[in-house]
């Protein structure tokens, strides 16, 4: 499957580097721009699936770039800015940006916004079924199936399982898992997490799935 291409337009080197590392880790192909003279041409030339555009740029203001870009192409634009006011958000949207996010941002939230834009703008489905050792997890319908059996997951369980599969082979700390759940606006506490984990394990077991979520005491969870 072709990877989605994301172009980062930001004049801060650290941000470019770290953001690129994260997005590549999440399975996107990243194009990084480090000269800002003809940004619009560069974008049109590379024709990415999405542009992450900073507003404060040398030579040209991000708003102008967005406006120019909109005249010539409908490449989705996610505007990133440190000016977190209604006026700025309204302006971004009026210039045809697809979304607006304020600095500093949480990477999970950024990724959720990115995939929402891609889902909206690309007719191609963003990976809706995740496979893990014969188990298939349908993110859109919230179902899991293994061999002949299938089951319905709650929103909590679905999010937990998909995060564990994304990080398979790594220990996921409780705090990380919680932060991920909270970034999806599921504000659960410690007990709820434990209860949901127990239910998830039970569902996996009932379907006869051989692997299970291991608990590493004091460290977190692990999906081998």
């Amino acid at each position: 499957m072709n990877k989605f291409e994301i172009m980062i337009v930001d004049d801060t080197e650290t941000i470019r580097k770290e953001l690129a590392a994260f997005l590549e880790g999440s399975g996107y192909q990243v194009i990084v721009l480090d000269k800002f003279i003809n940004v619009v041409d560069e974008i049109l030339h590379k024709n990415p699936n999405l542009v992450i555009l900073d507003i404060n740029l040398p030579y040209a203001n991000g708003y102008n770039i967005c406006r120019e870009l909109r005249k010539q192409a409908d490449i989705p634009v996610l505007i990133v800015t440190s000016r977190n006011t209604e006026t700025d958000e309204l302006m971004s949207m009026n210039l045809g940006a697809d979304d607006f996010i304020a600095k500093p941002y949480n990477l999970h939230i950024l990724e959720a916004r990115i995939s929402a834009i891609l889902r909206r703008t690309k007719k191609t489905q963003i990976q809706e079924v995740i496979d893990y050792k014969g188990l298939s997890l349908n993110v859109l319908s919230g179902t899991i199936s293994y061999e002949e059996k299938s089951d319905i997951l709650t929103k909590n369980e679905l999010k937990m399982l998909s995060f564990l599969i994304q990080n398979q082979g790594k220990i996921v700390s409780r705090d990380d898992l919680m932060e991920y759940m909270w970034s999806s606006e599921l504000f659960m506490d410690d007990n709820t997490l434990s209860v949901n984990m127990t239910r998830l394990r039970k569902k996996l077991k009932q379907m006869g799935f051989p692997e299970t979520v291991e608990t590493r005491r004091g460290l977190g969870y692990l999906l081998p």
Partner: protein
Amino acid sequence: MKLTDYLRERLVFLTVNLLLFSFLATVMLVLKVRIIVIFVTFFIWFTPLITYSLLQFCQQKSFLDELTMLSESLDQAYLLSEVVKKPDYLEGKLYYKALKAANRSMLERVNEYQTAQKDYREYVETWVHEIKTPIASAQLIIDNHKNEVTRGINIELKRIDNYVEQALYYAKSNTVNEDYKIRECALAAITKKAISRNAQDLIRQNFSVDMSAVEGNVNTDPKWVEFILNQIIGNAVKYCREDARKLVFSTKSEKNCRILTIQDNGIGIPQKDLAKVFDKGYTGENGRMFGKSTGIGLYLCKKLCDRLRIGISLESFPAKGTAVQLIFPIGDLNMIAKDFCK
């Protein structure tokens, strides 16, 4: 200005004239001058004097009455010298000139301070936006390298971000410009954003957060309200109790308003401190005990709420918890607009 006041003012002058005349009259009587001559002298002496006085009274009255009336009725009394009619007698002209000069110098002075304040505010805003970039960079580095150390740094970074935001809104709260945009927005969306911002603190403190009872739309600036909620959540995290920490958000609709309540089960606020929690720099017993309070958070909330026409009230019981209510008015105009759309 009343005639009697004016005459009282001229009392000495008139008395001296009367005394001098009586002296002259006495001399004339002694010299056996005819009574009629004395009367004529009286008229020659006093007719111009009284006419002049009355004329002056009329001139002054029109200027001074206008001055008094304007100073009482004008919204900004200092604009008086701009509005008042220029008088047409010497004394008045001089007063008028002095008033103008004093006013001009005051306006220059006010302008100076206004410019300085605007300058400073713009600087704070620029500074805040500048510093957001390194904060964002640091945040990205931390997110990409998660471990116990960076998690600790991350929490401190969030605090820095909160303080920076506070400085920004403090600067905004003090200026005259309307720096917000009112639109219809869902309370649940704003609440979610505010909770997400505080996710790390709330998770670390093991708060149980419930916002399932938040519903409805209000007309306001969502960014400002998010900041206000952020401060309130920050307080709940700061002044929480040992165990079973809870934070419950709920809404209630009244006839003319919608009320968002934020209820925690923290240490509460002593009754004697309650009246002053919205005062600037007031830290109260809790602030002294915890030593982390600046007395700015709630003061700023109140100030921003006032600007947005949101009511804010606080109820608290020691060892039970605190509830903050934000009261969003539902204007008649909006209702009319909605009916109209139907």
